[in-house]
């Protein structure tokens, strides 16, 4: 019970405006999509003929990883 009040005080004192949940979710999504992209490009580099098979898989993985950030965005837009 005390900890959320402390957290809110810390956030207000630091002058943070905006949503921490959205920030953390965006960071996680960015890292995830970057990793998927890196692995996809590496796979195409190892086997350039498989580009047509790798591309839908990579896009699917990126959309799934980005969905978590979208959930946080919706919560933020609806007023937490």
């Amino acid at each position, binding site marked *: 019970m005390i900890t959320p009040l402390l957290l809110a005080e810390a956030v207000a004192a630091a002058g943070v405006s905006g949503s921490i949940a959205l920030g953390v979710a965006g960071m996680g999504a960015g890292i995830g999509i970057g990793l998927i992209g890196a692995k996809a490009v590496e796979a195409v580099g190892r086997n350039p003929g498989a580009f047509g098979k790798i591309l*839908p898989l990579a*896009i*699917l993985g990126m*959309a*799934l990883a980005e*969905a978590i950030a*979208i*959930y946080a*965005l*919706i919560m933020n*837009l609806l*007023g937490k």
Partner: protein
Amino acid sequence: MVLSFDCEMDADTFPMNFLPILASGGLPLHAPTYFSEERMGVPYLEWLTSSMLATFLVVGIIIYLARQATRQLEIIPGPSQNVFEAVMVILYDTLEGIVGKHMVGKVFSLLATLFIFILTANWFGLLPGVGSIGWGHVEGSFRNIAHVEEPILRPTTADLNMTLGMALVFMCFWVYWTFSEVGLVSFLKHEFGVKGGLTGAMAVMLAPIFFFVGIIEVVSIGFRPISLSLRLFGNVFAGENLLTTMITLGNTLGMPGWASALVSVIVPIPFYFLELLVGLIQAMVFVLLCSVYIQLSTSHDEGEAQH
């Protein structure tokens, strides 16, 4: 006797002439997702919201184009028939590769319809006029940017009702296909049963663990319609808000009239391309995920039939 309507409208919120005002400032940032459009006093049409009107238009466009293309089917197709054939063949081959030959006949009609509808609905929301023509109030003179509060048309998939409806329909069909293909007992064994080929005492000891794994699996299956609908809704709604913010960027930064008009034409161009791409990707992801869910629960039929 005098009949009187009770319209519940404030005289200072809405202009008393209901002519739609052309506005280049679109939705406010916290755009509500639908409006009750027929509030002129017609009580039976309250379900007709802006996005439902856009839904009817999208469906009308798809049906009209499809009928035009398949009017006279020929062996060597003309251009419009060729487009539809290409879409059908690509979808069929992709879905057959994922779902398997034994399921693709039943599954293809729903998933292909979902793909074409979601794609057309996403791209329909990018047309100029969707979300920016409607009722509102004018700030200043006519040359200033008006503020639209009730658009006439809104993108279909930017309405959580629509995406949730599509996801729930898919889940109902998923349940039906799973149970008709695999059977109730086999499905329960697949979820809660002991995996890995263990028999005997080890199986009895590990059974509670697998039971709880099955419970978690059921929760994850129950989460699927929520994630499907929220992903599509979030992407399209956020894209719509992003476009609106970019278009009204000059106005919010307080630039003079000519500069804000120039900015509102040039700045959204890359974001329009982004929204085109996002619309295509989200439709593809929705249908690919649906087909993967079907494959996950109906696929072990093949493994057992091969011996």
